[in-house]
């Protein structure tokens, strides 16, 4: 991982692959800079030649050569802009891909630690800073040093004493840079801090809008916001003062240099020690010097920002997921090779082949699942989410899991596809420890529906086919029918092609769950995990969907969590969890009489059912 030891290692690796383009860019840039020196010299020659010429026609060569030189320069200017700026975008592209691939492989504990907003900021703002660093830093270094060097040489060639005199303000210039550079950076940081505060106030107010409305706190929040705005505006104006002073001083110093040149240089022309053309050219070169001088400050800023952003990106890229394939992997290869390796594995054959291809879910027997004394604790927590859970699920068994909120039901299911790894104990699927199975092989057979499923802002059909993109249409229709989504589908404006919006906002909660169910069924799972998957459906629909699933996947192993006894009753075995412990386990008929939690929820539900019947009778 340690390449060159600095945070620049990664981009240097990428830059190396564009060696030729960069070389061409830098050479073009240098040619451009050198060619830029010629027109002022031609002007000098022309002016000095004026007294000896008799007709304007003799000046035509100067016109032509100036246009010729600049046209040539234009070619090279196009060249360096296109290649150097282009390289920055190309490296950005690679870096972004690398980030995506890396983040894609991270496990749940990573995402619990790092909010998506923070990651997004790194993938957007920081990437911009890095791209700018790549685009401008080399350019500025080459451009500044070359321009400063050559201009000084030419100025010295024209008039050495005048050159030395005109550089008198230079020490002040560097002092100015040192002092104001620091000040501007400090104040920019203050502005950023105030901006963050402003953002927080808005964020907080909008998040707490119910409270704001309900206690008529609008005035209070307006006050807090007004204060934050005031602070932000104040710091901005503060920064503007410093910045204004900085620019004004720069102007004054270059102005002073120009005055020195005018007075002393003019005097030297007058004394005949400098030609008029030389005087004009000297002025032009002096003016050409000011931009690279000014860009020094920009350069430092660019470097600092770019370096900070690189560090933030390295921080992410250097994290390794704890849940990985046990088989020796190429994770330790340098990123460029790792990256290309990953690209190479993205061969079309591996993912367009339908996952369910060739298998018949109705006949394929589900795997056994064996929890052996599994304990699990979330990284930031000090209590056990699962405590010594031992559970044997036979091939094709249906296991219902229940318990109060926070008892560990979801966590238990999430252990199987290795969203978490046990802190202690182990889990075996089909007799093999899941940590020894390749992740893909483990997950390929699993269908999973979460209580609040994550859907993508695609069409219904894309979402249903999510796990089996190559699957034929009739399989999709079957899955949708099984999930009882077919009727809803007819009501959607574009049927299959209906776009469901960010996270499926266009759908109701129940529809989202049924899309997720269809998605899970599409992969023809041998092992189906339903995490309170029907909470948004009414009991009647839930029972219907449940019956559909059970008959459609007669041989699959199914584990599901639910609060409803009616669903749990369909299981072979019911497990009751409380604070991570298994407190009841057995056939539902038995547990219903065991005097525990399951009996209580069963009776409650019976009462509910009776109530409903009563209501129906009443309605008639």
């Amino acid at each position, binding site marked *: 991982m340690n390449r060159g030891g600095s945070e620049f290692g990664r981009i240097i690796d990428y830059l190396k692959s564009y060696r030729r383009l960069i070389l061409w860019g830098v050479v073009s840039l240098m040619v451009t800079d050198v060619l830029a020196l010629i027109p002022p010299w031609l002007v000098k020659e022309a002016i000095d030649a004026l007294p000896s010429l008799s007709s304007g026609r003799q000046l035509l060569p*100067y016109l032509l050569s*100036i246009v010729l030189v600049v046209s040539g320069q234009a070619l090279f200017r196009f060249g360096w802009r296109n290649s150097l*700026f282009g390289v920055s975008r190309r490296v950005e592209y690679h870096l972004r891909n690398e980030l995506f691939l890396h983040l894609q492989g991270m496990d749940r504990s990573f995402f619990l630690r790092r909010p998506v907003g923070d990651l997004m900021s790194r*993938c*957007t703002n920081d990437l911009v800073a890095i791209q700018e660093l790549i685009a401008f830093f080399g350019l500025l270094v080459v451009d500044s040093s070359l321009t400063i060097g050559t201009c000084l040489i030419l100025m010295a060639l024209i008039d050495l004493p005048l050159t030395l005199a005109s550089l008198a303000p230079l020490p002040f210039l560097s002092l100015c840079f040192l002092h104001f550079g620091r000040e501007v950076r400090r104040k920019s940081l203050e502005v950023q801090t105030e901006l963050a505060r402003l953002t927080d106030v808005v964020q907080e107010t*909008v*998040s707490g809008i119910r409270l704001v409305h309900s206690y008529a706190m609008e005035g209070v929040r307006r006050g807090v916001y007004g204060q934050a705005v005031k602070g932000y*505006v104040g710091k901005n104006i503060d920064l503007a003062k410093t910045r204004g002073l900085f620019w004004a001083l720069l102007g004054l110093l270059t102005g002073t240099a120009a005055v020195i040149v005018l007075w002393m240089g003019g005097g030297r022309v007058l004394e005949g020690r400098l030609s008029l053309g030389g005087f004009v050219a000297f002025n032009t070169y002096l003016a050409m010097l000011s931009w690279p001088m000014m860009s020094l400050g920009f350069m430092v800023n660019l470097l600092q920002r770019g370096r900070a952003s690189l560090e933030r990106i390295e921080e992410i890229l250097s994290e390794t997921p704890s849940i990985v394939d046990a088989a020796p992997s190429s994770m330790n290869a340098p990123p460029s090779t790792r990256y290309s390796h990953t690209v190479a594995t*993205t061969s079309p054959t591996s993912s367009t082949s339908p996952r369910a291809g060739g298998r018949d879910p109705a006949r394929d027997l589900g795997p056994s699942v064996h929890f052996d004394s599994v304990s699990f604790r979330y990284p930031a927590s000090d209590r056990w989410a699962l405590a010594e859970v031992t559970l044997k699920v036979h091939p094709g068994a249906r296991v219902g899991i229940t318990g109060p909120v926070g008892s560990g039901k979801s966590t238990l299911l999430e252990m199987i596809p290795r969203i978490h790894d046990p802190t202690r104990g182990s889990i075996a699927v089909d007799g093999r420890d899941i940590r020894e199975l390749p992740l893909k092989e483990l997950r390929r057979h699993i269908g*999973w529906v979460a209580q609040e499923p994550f859907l993508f802002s695609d069409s219904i059909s894309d979402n249903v086919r999510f796990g089996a993109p190559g699957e034929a249409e009739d399989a999709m229709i079957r899955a949708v029918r099984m999930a009882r989504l077919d009727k809803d589908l007819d009501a959607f404006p574009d049927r299959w092609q209906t776009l469901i919006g960010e996270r499926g906002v266009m759908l109701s909660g129940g529809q989202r769950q049924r899309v997720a169910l269809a998605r899970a069924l599409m992969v023809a799972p041998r092992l189906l995990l339903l995490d309170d998957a029907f909470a948004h459906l009414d009991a009647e629909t839930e029972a219907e969907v449940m019956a559909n699933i059970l008959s459609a996947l007669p041989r699959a192993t199914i584990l599901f969590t639910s609060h409803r006894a009616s669903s749990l009753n369909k299981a072979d075995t019911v497990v009751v969890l409380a604070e991570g412990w298994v407190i009841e386990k057995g056939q539902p008929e038995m547990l219903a009489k065991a005097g525990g939690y399951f009996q209580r929820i069963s009776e409650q539900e019976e009462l509910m059912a009776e109530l409903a019947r009563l209501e129906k009778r009443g309605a008639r």
Partner: protein
Amino acid sequence: MRQASDASGILEDEIRGRTYDIRLMTRLMGYLRPHVGLVLLCLAVLMVDSLLDLAGPYLTKVAIDDCILRKDHSGLLQIAFLYMLASILGFASQYLRVYLLQLTGQRVMIRLRMEVFDHILRMSQSFFDRTPVGRLVTRAVQDIEVINELFTQGVIVIFGDLVTLSGITVVLFWMDWRLALVVLSVTPLVAVAMALYRVRARDAYRRVRLHLARLNAYLQENLSGATTVQIFCREEENFRRFDTMNRETRDQYLRSIRYSSLFFPCVEVIAAICLGLIIWYGGGRVIQEELLPGVLVAFIQYTKRFFQPVRDLAEKYNILQGAMAASERVLGLLDTPEGLPDPPQPKRPGGRTGKVAFEDVWFAYNPGEWVLRGVNLEVTPGETVALVGATGAGKSSLIGLMQRAYDPQRGRIKVEGTDVRLWSKEELRRHVGVVPQDVFLFSGSLLENLRLWDPRISEDLVREVARSLGVEPLILEIPGGYAADVGERGQNLSLGQRQLIAFARALLYDPAILVLDEATSSVDPATEVLIREAMRRLIKGRTSLIIAHRLSTIRDADRIVVMQRGLIREEGTHQELMAIDGIYHRLYRMQQLVEVGGRHGAAQ
């Protein structure tokens, strides 16, 4: 960090966003009006600054023609002195220019910021139900930031550039109109280059933004749904898609780089043609002694500056584009009508008796999905009513309607005999106090969170109320006590503490009518006793509507209202309802069986 949070919002906005719109500009200019004085001052400074910038070449000309060529040493000193003076004045004008521009921009933005914030505050609950927080933050903060750039770097600077351009033109014509015409002869070339570039740059810029927004939205989705992607083994397919988007974005960038790489050298060539023409034609006239050499030099220097604004304009173009898109989004938000405006002349009901009446109220969050279907309920002053029913029976919707977070589709709600739609919302909400299930805490001290920054409530009163509710011991248990910083949404407080804070808050505001959504989550027995006791004191002598989950609360109520599927099914006292073999009877038995069951049912 926050910018990224609504990438898909950007996407949506970007598709909507048009680029240039005169109406948009006029509206934005309207924000300048209150600061006319400052704006004029800015323009004056800008003009002086631009003109001082032009002094240099002219002084050089005078120095050459009047001093150097005439061998006038003292005259040269005078010119040098004038040049120095111009530099010093330039120093002042440059400083003022940067400072005043920022000052004006920021002042103008204050009003826009406050307007946007106020507008957000005025929106009704249904707006917030469908608008992600991140998007509003972007509108109120980042977008306005971009509009500020439009002022400080865009409009006013462009004006400065125009002053420079016209200043140069005037000076050139004044020095020598024939040579000036030569310089102007290249302007059609510049205009053509600009026009060609502008059309392509705009298009390229739009495509870049669009692709980038799409790319980031997809990235965000893949981060939020990482687990789903992994379980369904979609990593490769999704990466392929991402790679395609990434590649397309890169290619759009490369395209726009190509355009600017073409444009800038073209401008250079045009400038060189101009320079060559000056040397050729001007030099010829110097030879004929029709023109002084100094004028020629001044022309050469002015021509350089002539092309600077052209380059600036091209570079500023993207900023302007972004700013226009941001203005459109911000003004679009301001144009979104507030959902439930106050009546023009709100009634001021005199009484504070605490009367509430629901009259045939029908309500649905989404059309067709009725949550309330004709609710009739009258609460008499001082009465405590417990609302009982399963999740989704419509109990919580009643709260929103009473505070006018939503309006019913049919029927009406009367508070103190007056339709809530005739009240001013602020007054209504002070009259009807709500204690929600989960308390929201702003960053700040516990004390301020209790009195909600209301200066009329003294610290002593807060303490007194907390003591009277019996919650002070619990507050003092929190490290820091009243001064404790409870920000970050109070994650360091226990559930019980949070509930009691909500009670104390409500009592401090002393509403005539109290609506309480009893929390369903379980707390330890000691806190349970505290809560029960505090609630008893809170509702004493006050009209109270309680969405009840605790048997004790229900039993203590004057009246129990049983709701089911948006309808009131049974009403009466505990004894009355127990006497009939109805819903309540069964619910009560159920509740007795499993306190837990009802709780986790409701917690969903």
